[in-house]
């Protein structure tokens, strides 16, 4: 089945099997390997991307369901060579170790900050509760998101 999906502002048309998951469409068909593939059961959250402006787990969305819709991946966070404050925050606060959960964490963080520019630690922890990190114990991830909140030089992006 042919699908056309707008990813990070660019339209892609591909012929796909109806069983294909959105995470595999992004990684294998478009080569956007920033989106990671983890538990495959919608638990771990590493595959989180935006679908029509909200974070969802792309291992639980069929690629055909995204036909005609807009997706944003971690590759779409940076703007014109400038890192998003969330990305900068993860750099500054050591928000990652192995990096496996990082793309999903950052996309959820961007969405949180767009809706709540000054979140409390508790609100950050609630927002990322659907995403597992096995390295950091979450402390530095929370600090990274707070850093981004305090250094929000760029406008909230869509």
């Amino acid at each position, binding site marked *: 089945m042919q699908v056309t999906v707008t990813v990070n502002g660019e339209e892609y048309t591909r012929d796909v099997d*109806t069983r294909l998951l959105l995470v595999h469409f992004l990684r294998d068909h478009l080569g956007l390997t920033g989106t990671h593939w983890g538990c495959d059961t919608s638990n771990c959250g590493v595959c989180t991307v935006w679908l029509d402006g*909200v974070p*969802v*787990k792309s291992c*639980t969305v069929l690629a055909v*369901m995204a036909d005609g819709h807009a997706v944003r991946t971690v590759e779409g966070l940076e703007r014109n060579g400038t890192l998003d404050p969330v990305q900068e925050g993860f750099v500054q606060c050591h928000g990652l170790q192995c990096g496996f959960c990082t793309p999903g964490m950052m996309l959820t963080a961007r969405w949180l900050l767009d809706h709540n520019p000054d979140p409390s630690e508790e609100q950050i922890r609630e927002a990322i*509760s*659907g995403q597992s990190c096995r390295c950091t114990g979450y402390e530095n991830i929370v600090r990274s998101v707070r850093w981004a909140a305090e250094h929000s030089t760029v406008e909230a992006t869509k």
Partner: protein
Amino acid sequence: MRPISYSRVADVGTAVGTVTADPASAFLAGGTTQVDLLRIYVEQPRRLVDINDLPLRDIEELPNRGLRIGALARMNEVAEHPSVIDRSPLVSQALLLGASPQLRNMASIGGNLLQRTRCTYFRDVSTACNKRTPGTGCAAMDGVNRGHAVLGTSDQCIATHPSDLAVALVALDADVIAEGQRGRRSIPVHEFFLPPEDTPDIEHPLDHGELIVDVEVPPAPDGSTSLYLKVRDRESYEFALASVAVALRVEGGMVVEVRLALGGVATVPWRARRAERMLTGQPATTENFAAAAREELAPAVARGMNGFKIELACRTIVRALETVAPDGAR
């Protein structure tokens, strides 16, 4: 996942007609449970009919101060909607305590009501499960059943109903509005969830191809205070071990009206009518709350690892009632 055909429909009539005509087909909404179940071969339709384009996403205020919630409205949309927060805070609280933001952005209200149990044996096709494959037995009876139900069970099935929203809806006497080949009908939510008895595979009264289009939520009783209290192993992104939806009206220290429903402990969202009857007209005291909780849990049946839920449910009921009672309780 098996090979599967996929199509989209733009109106309810076509959706109902398409699925009704093909026994091997299924509606597809947010997919957050369904895509998982397709992948692990628990559900094996040959055709998916994507209903996400149907105009069933509105949230309307009804003249009776209630709400009509479109079946395709997403959990987060409903939870954060000003009308829902204003008129039905119990629904908003229950939704926000379920799943995680990433799932709530995708999961629909109709799908939430029809989600399948998280019983690990139901989801493992190599084990016996009367709900998944009738007549094969129940591996949970003597298995790892810490999360399983103590109320509404049968010797066929002890799977817990997973929805938080449904518990709030049962407390509020909501109606599920469904459309099928025979037209539109309204099903009181307490008749919508069927206990397992001898047919645990039959979970609701909908015909194949009949589609939930709306949920109508009446207001909580006048003058009542409501709360959804959920107790679980971790504070977020976890199913309930015990949960309570309560709306309580107390006047002059006496319980005038009380609605009480339980989640996490029963095979269906459990309306605690025994406790309600016992409390109504009685002084709003901790002692009476505890007696009513024990009365509700009296028929509970523990199996192996889940006996703790009986005491936990009692304590959760008492804490919920104390929290909404004026000045706590005496």
